[in-house]
């Protein structure tokens, strides 16, 4: 892969990660080494093998539509860094 800085910047942006210039450089180095190692995957003939996202054979793990109104708001808000008027506070979101 090209783990050049442009790729790192693109990916860091998708992941909403702030990276310093120095960080960009070393992640770029690390990722190049890792991706080079992973080149081995390209050589495997996976033919018509179906992707396996889960080993489980469980299907339909469903719950009944029952509402349980345990109001935990205050307990939950207490964990938040910034709140106001029962809401979570974030910087102005410009739409």
């Amino acid at each position, binding site marked *: *892969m090209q*783990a050049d800085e442009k*790729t*790192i910047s*693109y*990916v*860091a942006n*998708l*992941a*909403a*990660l*702030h*990276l310093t210039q120095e*960080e960009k450089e070393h*992640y770029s180095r*690390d*990722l190049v*080494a*890792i991706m080079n*190692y*992973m080149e*081995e*995957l*390209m050589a*495997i003939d*996976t033919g018509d*093998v*179906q*992707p*396996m*996202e*889960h*080993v*489980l054979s*469980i299907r339909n*793990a469903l*719950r009944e539509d029952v509402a349980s109104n345990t109001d*935990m708001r205050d*307990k*939950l808000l*207490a*964990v*938040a*860094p*910034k709140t106001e008027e029962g809401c*979570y506070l*974030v*910087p*102005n*979101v*410009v739409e």
Partner: protein
Amino acid sequence: MELHQMPVYVLAEKLKKKELGARELTQAYLNRMQTFQPEVNAFITVTEEKALAKAEALQKMLDNDQGGSLAGVPMAFKDNMCTEGVRTTCASHMLENFIPPYNATVVERFQSAGTISLGKLNMDEFAMGSSNENSFFGPVRNPWNGEKVSGGSSGGSAAAVSAGLAPFTLGSDTGGSIRLPAAFCGVVGMKPTYGAVSRFGLVAFASSLDQIGPLTSNVKDCALVLDTLMGYDPKDSTSANVVHEACFPAVTQGVQGMKIGLAIEYFGAGLNEEIKASVYGAVKALENAGAISGECSVPATEYGISAYYLLSSAEASANLARYDGIRYGHRSEAATDMQELYRFTRGEGFGREVKNRILLGTHALSSGYHDALYVKALKVRRMIHDDFAKAFETYDILVSPVSPTTAYKIGEKTADPLQMYLGDVYTVAVNLAGLPALVVPCGVDAQGMPIGVQLIGKPFSEKKLLQAGYAIEAALGQLVSPMASQLLKQAEGSARI
């Protein structure tokens, strides 16, 4: 025998028979912690007061012949299992002060069983690591040699048991995170079948691979703890709705006629000779006890590292996206707008290796690479799964080393993530295939560091793995770390029965 050297099943018995008090036992562990915790750094949080209060309450129940199966037994949770009212950090600056308002299902299960939590155990940040050096709270030191790593990511869980700081602990295993530290610290560790243990309240690293398991000083304890741990949980859609037969009563049933497979891929180049010899020694022990061994092959496991690091990082990149400084956890003070709040919070809150995995995983899922990396890895995963299934048509258990080397020096591999990843070569395939695997100590190397053997089974064959593990332990003996052999001076309150 010292209290801290007693097996869990003995402690539970003695507590029930009132030959031992819950408070006395808890205090004995807390006393040891005073001396040894600063040396090993196994705990992130020690909940001394809560533990003593709980011991008091449980003693009252024990006095009335009440309490669960493990009433009064101290233990500790890896710090990625949510504990209501006790901070759960995942060894990350991001969650340094996070106190969950809810419990993980496993925490509830052990509370019902009557255990006493001593605190929360050190780990690699968000369980990403193989040496426990990626902790915001500093590395865990190996109780066998303080200059060496404990293994990771459940380093605190393994070291605490190894150092005699807890009778048993819980860890989590995504790619070897229970088994590797168990081997490095000379304790018993089990990664159960995917779906056997609830993941609710386990802070997710890679959802399709994560599984909680026990770390104990001996195989019988492992079985006993597993019997409390396993079970269906409607709060976890990936939890298997099956009835688990009790393991503990069946541990000593022997291995007569059991078919043991040695996969050639696990004994190739790169494996330390001492470890190879030691693992063969364990195989010999099984044969002596009546098992039959033979060679087999699981060729696709050769690609395990690549597939594992792509898939686990891909899932992690989404699982860790929720840490944004809005609802809980660290929030950057420097941010002036929404984009900065995200980017700075995450940039400041996550450590180096976590960022590395997020970048790798985001890349693997991103447009243009999704099929070549993520989907390809999913296909390799199926191949690995099928290879194991084929081997298990012939064999009951596969035997392998846990790691190519024994515990290495702290700092030795930190500069090179790839070298660190390659240390997981024998463990990751088990997670990709969702299989159970048990690690049992089987010797020490020339430097006196423990060696473990890995027993891999078919889905839900934990009982059989424990029977084989017990046979090895019976033949080769338990390992006791120098730190566990070290007693406190009388003045420090060492208790003896």
